């Protein structure tokens, strides 16, 4: 067991625990999207779980740090908040904010974080860019909404855990990056129909089982 301080509280937790997990388990909320507990090498791709650790000169993503004894962590410094707000605003600037017609409404990671960070869902200083394709129906059992997707990669991770080899992947590059189905719907095993782990893991209802 190690003891560390996060903001005003003292936490006692098993050595080797992931710092983000340690915070969340102790009811200290740190915004996050791509982390799933138990990950061996967290992707650190959403760039939201920044914290400041005493002795380091810049904020670091909490999911990439293991707890150490006597670690002093701050989750709410101006530097941390600035990066978190920018990251969320960037995600929202490519997100089709149409909450009324979204199945994730009121159960949405983006809404929760926007509320927590006190930012508007529609940004004033960043333009909105949506991808041309609104929906991808290429998969036999799934619908994919590129303009909802935050590309956290949780679906890919859980799919690999469930199916031994993943049916999903990141496709294309840069701004055009999407979740792809390897192009061949026939290659998906019948278990896709019943598994649905990917849809359950999606924080923003970008992947849904076909009705």
């Amino acid at each position, binding site marked *: 067991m190690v003891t560390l301080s996060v903001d005003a509280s003292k936490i006692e937790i098993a050595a080797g625990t992931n710092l983000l997990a340690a915070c969340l388990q102790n009811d200290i909320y740190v915004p996050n999207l791509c982390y799933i507990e138990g990950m061996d090498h967290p*992707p650190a791709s959403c*760039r939201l779980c920044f914290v400041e650790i005493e002795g380091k000169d810049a904020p670091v993503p909490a999911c990439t740090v293991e707890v150490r004894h006597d670690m002093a962590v701050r989750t709410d410094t101006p530097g941390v908040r600035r990066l978190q707000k*920018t990251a969320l605003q960037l995600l929202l600037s490519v997100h089709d904010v149409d909450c009324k017609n979204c199945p994730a409404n009121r159960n949405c990671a983006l809404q929760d974080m926007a509320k927590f960070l006190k930012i508007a869902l529609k940004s004033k200083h960043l333009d909105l*860019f949506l991808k041309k394709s609104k929906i991808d129906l290429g998969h036999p059992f799934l619908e994919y909404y590129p303009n909802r997707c935050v*590309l956290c990669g949780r679906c890919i991770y859980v799919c690999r855990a469930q199916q031994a080899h993943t049916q999903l*992947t*990141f496709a294309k*590059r*840069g701004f055009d990056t999407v979740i792809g189905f390897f192009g061949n719907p026939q290659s998906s095993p019948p278990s896709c129909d019943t598994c649905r782990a990917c849809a359950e893991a999606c924080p923003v209802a970008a992947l849904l089982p076909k009705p």
Partner: protein
Amino acid sequence: MSPADHQPFQAGFDEIRKAAATRQRAFAEAPVPRIHIGMATCGIASGALETKAAFEQALARHGIDARIHTVGCIGHCYAEPFVIIDHPESGFPPIFYPEVNAGKANMLTKLFLAEGDPRFEHILGATEENDMIPWIGEFSRFNQEKRVVMEKCGHIDPEDIYEYIAAGGYETLPDMFRRSPKEIIQQINDAGLRGRGGAGFATGLKWELAADQPGDAKRVICNADEGDPGAYMDRTILESNPHQVLEGLIACAYAVGAHKAIIYVRAEYPLAVRTITKAIRQASELGLIGNDILGSSFDLDIEVFHGSGAFVCGEETALIRSIEGFRGMPRHRPPYPVERGLWGTPTVINNVKTLASVAPILKNGAAWYRKIGTDNSPGTAIFSIVGDVVHPGLIEIPMGVSLRTLIFDICGGIPNKKKFKAVQIGGPSGGCLPEEFLDTPIDFDSLTEAGAMMGSGGMVVMNEDTCTVDISRYFLDFTQKESCGKCTFCRIGTYHLLTILERITEGKGSPADLKNLAQLSQDIKNGSLCGLGKTAPNPVVTSLRYFKEDYEAHVSEKRCPGMMCRPLIAFYIDLEKCARGCDACVGCCPVEAVFTTRNRKKGIDQSLCVKCGECMVACPPEYDAVRKVSPPELAPIIERPAEPLKDEK
């Protein structure tokens, strides 16, 4: 017998060296002319294959016995395809001819090889000191260089291992095996070698960290996934002297205790892939790679891996993922590859230039290497200098030389009497530096301090007719397209930067855009996951810092000072200078925007003009009548005659 013959591992190598020396003597002493042709990709692109074919045909036609010797690239791009003719019987020293096309090859065969006239008007210089022809060693493009990595490039045939050995290659191996891996690392540490991939991490330290890892399932990787626009030194080294890289790779593997090595080279470099693959095969055949090298009981396998077209795979963690068969996306460090790299084993990844520096250090010693360059950045730097300079190409200079010396002395300055405006160093990750920085010494730390970075060594020199906003837009367009899409800041942030820059270059920017650019750049730098994202805003940050007036002119005056941004410029014809009856510009206009005025001069219809600038090129220099202005409203309106005139039909 010298005492060396009794030392372990020496006898086997001496035998190889003897064979190499015999072959080399046969080549050097043959009483026939030798024609050396540069045949790296750059030479081939300029027509070296045609030059070679022309020489072969001409030699056969004139019945001349001569050797054609294909060599790699010498780094003088402005002179491609280059040929060195060594014709001892003529009494002249070996002569360097630039830009030898098929016609020149024919002419030189007939007039020089057959008749002994070297055609002075086509000569760049002689490669040796002599009384007849100026020696190239007297030109600053040659004598200010210090070649360590590229010493043999352009002098030996890269596809023949014996030529490398005859020139002193692989000499370090027997001695290296007599020493312990620790001593090798110590020597690299003493030399102060820093990684040439861009970041400048201490190579010896990297090796030490990997060597300290337990077990012997370790790997070393040569990173030849060069992807910066305008940088081509890694390709040139692999195509011109692959064995020097292999020699360094063997030393690296021996030092860290690895038995598997991989050369990660981009598939877009087919000739480099071919030369390095052939080099590995030849070295294996001589027992310099493989099991029990030279009887030392050290085993090493070297494989070539083809990287397929992702800039981000030059980043070491993405490179590892792509070898493992995954999508090439960077991962968070730590763990660093030296702890947990390819397939989870400790992995050292070194750049081509770093590895190519190893053999000269082992051969000449750390103290010798320390004497080159500066205290904090010993050794040499290789730059590919392109853009507005008289003598572009690859240049290897000691660290610490100033940008001014490099650009104005060695590369001959800016052509066409234009003024210097900026130099972009380090490709898409680097920065744009203005004239004030010309006296900055070139080394890792000074460049980083100035806001640029060594990067892989790409350098683009720009004259006064350059728009730094447009240059930033160009680099952002590149990084955005090459972003792997993994992390939020790089994927979306660079897209916003790009669209803002596009808006500014179209004259639609606002002062708020400038503020947004600066803030977003800062956040992308601090928030991104890997080096690509962290450095992507550098072109914007530096140009905003040093060329703010360019941005302000676009935003507040809708004017492009470099006159590059098409929506902000206009072409018109100066009627004072335009010659009556000349139709040069009419013929070249792709959209028929040029018309004839009532007094048979020319005007440009601004509503049709696409601003390609062809008319400006076509207008004969004695008239020089086409003018470019920004903002476009400055162009005087010339009325198009309502009825087409007779001679226009």
